[in-house]
């Protein structure tokens, strides 16, 4: 019974329940579209939260990795006729290698410098995607063929919803495994005190690089899925604004809470859709949410709520 309260059992079960149950109440294709975008953003945020929430590092350039995955899929399947899964894997491998090479110098930076370093990386990726018009179509963007695998084409909102839901559940499951493991403890130790972590034998740089690469690869995979789902992508996917969106989702949901990352992604994906009038002020809303969270809800939505419930239960028992 008590073990059902563990994130890896009860939490995962709850997430699977929500993903499975949602189609019963989603009235039409528009809602499915929002749900699919939630799933894609949530997958990125679960990985980004490993980096920001657990390991205590920051990235203001993760939209760059998302876009690289998207463009790898678009270019390799569209212009070169690769099978989509091979393109997706190649994109992930390329982003993995790029982030691995860049992580060494970037992660030696701390605090503001790390933020600036990753910010610069995101901007460079965005510029390249805009400038290499021969390859990427430039600012106008490029079309992406549909996702075909094992002789089937993923088409229609139901199929996409199922695929994205499955990817999210698997990502959350693997992430929860990682957090409650020697690797996860090492990452959190690096966050808590780099000196103390190093003196218990944790190779601080190695684990920082590892978590950076893992979060970048997950962003790339989500980007590939997004490209096939949307059918058309532009360099806006790599924009600074998009990176800030992702960080805001993690911070609002709750740093160092995997389900927080999912909830944050859900809230901030749905909000602009629900309040279409906000579209023009989207960045303003995100800025306000970020500030409001930092001032009034330091721990973020899910950890704050979990704390309230725990206190309520404790005082109920006493």
């Amino acid at each position, binding site marked *: 019974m008590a073990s059902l309260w563990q994130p890896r059992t009860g939490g995962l079960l709850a997430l699977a329940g929500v993903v499975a149950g949602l189609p019963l109440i989603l009235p039409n294709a528009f809602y499915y579209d929002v749900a699919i975008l939630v799933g894609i953003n949530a997958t990125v945020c679960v990985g980004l939260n490993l980096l920001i929430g657990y390991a205590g590092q920051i990235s203001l350039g993760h939209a760059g990795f998302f876009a690289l995955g998207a463009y790898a899929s678009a270019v390799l399947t569209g212009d070169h006729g690769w099978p989509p899964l091979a393109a997706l894997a190649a994109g992930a491998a390329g982003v993995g290698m790029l982030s691995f090479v860049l992580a060494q110098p970037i992660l030696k930076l701390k605090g503001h410098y790390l933020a600036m370093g990753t910010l610069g990386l995101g901007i460079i990726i965005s510029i390249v995607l805009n400038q290499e018009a021969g390859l990427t179509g430039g600012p106008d963007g490029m079309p992406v063929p549909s996702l075909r695998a094992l002789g089937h084409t993923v088409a229609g909102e139901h199929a996409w919803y199922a695929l994205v839901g499955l990817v999210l559940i698997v990502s959350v499951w693997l992430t929860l495994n990682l957090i409650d493991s020697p690797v996860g403890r*090492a990452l*959190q130790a690096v966050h*808590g005190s780099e000196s103390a972590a190093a003196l218990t034998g944790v190779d601080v740089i190695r684990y920082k690089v590892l978590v950076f690469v893992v979060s970048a690869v997950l962003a790339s995979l989500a980007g590939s899925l997004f490209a096939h789902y949307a059918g058309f992508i532009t360099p806006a996917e790599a924009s600074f604004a998009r990176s800030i969106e992702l960080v805001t989702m993690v911070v609002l949901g709750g740093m160092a809470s995997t389900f927080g990352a999912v909830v944050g992604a859900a809230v901030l994906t749905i909000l602009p859709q629900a309040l279409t009038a906000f579209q023009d002020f989207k960045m303003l809303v995100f800025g306000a949410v970020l500030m409001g969270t930092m001032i009034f809800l330091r721990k973020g939505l899910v950890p704050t709520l979990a704390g309230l419930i725990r206190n309520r239960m404790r005082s109920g028992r006493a």
Partner: protein
Amino acid sequence: MTLLRVENLSKSFGPTPAIEDLSFAISLGTIHSIIGPNGAGKTTLFNLISGLYRPTSGTIWFDDADITALPPHRRARCGLSRTFQNLQIFLNLSALDNVMVGYHLACDGRFLPSLLRLPSVVRRDRDYRERAVALMRFVGLEAFVDAAADAMPYGALKRLELARALAVQPKMLLLDEPAAGLNPKETAELDFLIQQIAAQGITVVLVEHDMRLVWSVSNHILVLDHGRKLTEGTGWEIRHNEDVVAAYLGEGGRHR
């Protein structure tokens, strides 16, 4: 047998060196204290030995290997462990997980086995969790096994650092002012703990201002002043050294 040897070690931050041309050795199985006035360079010396600082010049030998150029995590692997004068607790983890991080080298820190939660990882984690609980009991933290580190009082956090440092299963344990902020009863318990740790064969190096504790546990004492060695010897020799009394102890310290 010599476990640690420091040769002509120097470290400067600015114009005046914090450690200057310091040489000494620590034998296996002893409790070795390092004393000296504030700013003498004791913590700097610990930072040099544990690898957080690189020396300006000089060599550090540990267990017959030159560790001068090794990064801190490799020194932990060699058998060095420490606590901090300014607590360095993982406040984002539970008390028990703080100790579990101490067992990092003993657990399986590879990515894929952890990601897939292989049974071997789970089994080893479970074994070490039991040992971590036992260590917490050993240092007197049985009441805090399920606590979050950020909810623990100062005295308990000092013990938690000790438990974490012991989990590294070190040959040598560096303690930087473990009695600071403790009341006399807690200090007496610490005295007993240090002796028990030494009895397990762990060489203890103690930086401490509480002279009662120093006199009680030390086999050997090194006196630092302005980054230089003032003298070293047994407790009796130090207590009767006029230079030490003048520079640090004062007439009262001799008898405390």
